[in-house]
């Protein structure tokens, strides 16, 4: 880890590729808005949702739950010692959710009617999607509010303060510090409540597709499984993103803090695996684990990734290598992401006359959003005081 030539992202080529993806994505999204979803994507009546929902929103917001998980640790379980990690976690979350929201707008067929979601007399409270949409919208706002102290700290002289309305907000907060803190407590509480609601509901959402979602994934435990999987996935994202930030800014790794998080991460993964198997066995679906052809493979891929990640996470206790933490976190993120994609696309079978493979433009669109998120992340990391003071 002593490569002194700097991180990949500092090399102009890497940044240029990401930027090229973003520009290509802009063109694709223009085509989507001026011609339609049909020519840009491979979605069909059988597969009304593709990767713009399954990856950009369902996996994307799960990756963005680090902020929420750190907030629970620090503010509910009184582990203030983790506070140095929260800023970068909240920033990742804010980008993850904003990009997911953008993807929803791109994916909505009748996006100009989106405002109807904000009219209380139109609310269908039976609808899982209603709850998910409102919560994601509210939580995105909450995340950016949680981020305001960073701007506040950056102070008068920074470039960002030249933007008029940000300056006026920060100044107002400065004037009424007590009031602002009270508001921040409300915001933090909402920032814990809202993800619990909508992350579990992202699982509930597919419970309605009883005849289409393969029984290996369709179970009343969907909301609980989704909620617990963001536990180990989110802490893994926090670890990766903390390690990468230090790598990028050539700083010391927060190994101790991340090692302390490892047992909790592993415990959540173990609980998830236990519930996963309990639900399959109690619903009499044990045979399906081996008899479902390709789907059995995807099922085991998902399970084995989580199991390997868990074992490595437990072993992190005996190692101080940041690379080790990085790899175990990658396994857990891969497993939990595949679980989500299995529920939304791979295990979803509307009938033999339909199949779905994302189109080139669809895939490029997803790459564009991920690249945009990555570039903005690096920019913010350089411009704003995100990482804690280096020595303790």
């Amino acid at each position, binding site marked *: 880890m002593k490569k002194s030539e700097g991180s990949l992202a500092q090399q102009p080529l890497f940044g240029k590729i990401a930027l090229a993806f973003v520009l290509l994505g802009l063109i694709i999204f223009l085509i989507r*808005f*001026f011609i*339609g*979803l*049909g*020519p840009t994507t491979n*979605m069909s*009546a059988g597969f*009304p*949702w593709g990767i713009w929902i399954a990856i950009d929103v369902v996996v994307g917001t799960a990756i963005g739950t680090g902020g929420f998980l750190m907030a629970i640790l*620090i*503010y*509910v379980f*009184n582990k*203030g010692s983790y*506070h140095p990690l929260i800023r970068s976690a909240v920033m990742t979350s804010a980008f993850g959710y904003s990009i997911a929201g953008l993807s929803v707008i791109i994916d*909505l*067929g*009748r*996006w100009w*009617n*989106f405002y*109807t*979601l904000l009219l209380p007399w*139109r*609310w*269908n*409270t*039976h*609808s*899982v*999607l*209603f*709850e998910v*949409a409102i919560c994601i919208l509210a939580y995105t706002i909450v995340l950016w509010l949680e981020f305001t102290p960073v701007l506040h700290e950056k102070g008068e002289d920074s470039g960002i303060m030249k933007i008029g309305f940000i300056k006026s907000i920060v100044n107002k907060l400065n004037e009424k510090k007590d009031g602002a*803190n009270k508001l*921040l*407590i*409300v915001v*933090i*509480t*909402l920032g*814990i*409540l809202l993800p*619990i*609601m909508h992350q579990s509901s992202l699982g*509930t*959402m*597919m*419970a*309605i*597709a*009883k*005849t*289409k979602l393969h029984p290996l994934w369709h179970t*009343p435990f969907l*909301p609980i499984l989704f909620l617990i999987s963001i536990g180990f996935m989110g802490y893994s994202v926090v670890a990766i993103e903390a390690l990468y930030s230090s790598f990028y800014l050539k700083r010391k790794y927060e190994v101790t803090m991340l090692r302390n998080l490892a047992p909790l991460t592993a415990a959540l993964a173990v609980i998830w695996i236990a519930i996963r198997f309990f639900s399959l066995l109690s619903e009499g679906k044990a045979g399906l684990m081996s008899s479902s052809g390709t789907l059995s493979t995807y099922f085991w891929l998902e399970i084995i990734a989580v199991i390997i990640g868990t074992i490595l996470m437990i072993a992190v206790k005996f190692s101080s290598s940041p690379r080790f933490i990085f790899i175990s976190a990658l396994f857990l993120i891969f497993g939990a992401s595949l679980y989500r994609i299995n529920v939304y696309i791979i295990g979803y079978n*509307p*009938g033999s*006359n339909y199949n779905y493979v994302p189109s080139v433009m669809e895939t490029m669109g997803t790459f564009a959003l991920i690249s945009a998120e990555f570039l903005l992340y690096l920019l913010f990391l350089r411009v704003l005081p995100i990482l804690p003071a280096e020595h303790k």
Partner: protein
Amino acid sequence: MKDKTSKNQVLLKRQDFLKGMVAAPLVIAGLPNSAGAKPSASDAGNNVSYLFDSTKCIGCRSCTSACNQINDAELFSHDRPLDLSERSRTAIRVFLDDTKDKGTFIKRQCMHCLHPACVSACPVKAMRIDEKTGIVYNDPSVCIGCRYCMVACPFDIIQFEWDKKFPKIIKCTMCKETNLKTRGITACVDVCPSGALIFGTRKKLLAEAKKRIKKNPKKYVPKVYGEKDGGGTNILYIAGKDFDELGFPKNLGDESPAVITESIQAIYSWFIAPVVAFFLLFIPVSKNFKKVAGEENEG
């Protein structure tokens, strides 16, 4: 009739409310719960309905043509669609026997469920049931095009205009604004020359379907599809072959798929549980917030 339904709805709302408060923990424990249940099959007797007798269908597809002409005049062609699409709200599918010399025709279109998953799924109430007739329809003026209704529909009926810049959801509306209004009958039944389709109230047609099966038990399988399936549908089917082999969803059961999600979502009725949770979280957060802030100032 109308008074009765509205009273039922008030009652239902109150039940929802109580269930939300009392049943949330039970729901988590996985107990069955029928929050948000729509009127049961017996209440739907006066719904507008039609019966498809597949033993009488000759596969001429007059119905699909008429539907196209009446409801989508600008798209009208004498196409004989093999299945539903955004250009065809109804289609006749053929299911050949193993010997391949005989087959069964099945008319596909919206089943107009009594407790439709699509209506339950729609976040903005763009998908609705017409209270008087039981017709399930979509109001494009509020629809946001999220397509969750398509995910939710167990019959895979709902279509979407993928190739349009300003697309709409397309489905059978039982000619609600067209033939039903002008001639009191849906276009497909209107033109059916073989008597495979008959129109009436759900109660009457259910009785007729059962009568036909009883009279001719060799010709029919002993089941009226739609009587109970998926919580019951307004469109009813009888056939000479097992419905599992005729493209109907397997393992749908007698309950609407919406029952699963609605019982889970009952946790949120009236926002009581979230508000309580908010205050339970607020207490430790405000305590620990001051602590963290204090430590930071010292450091």
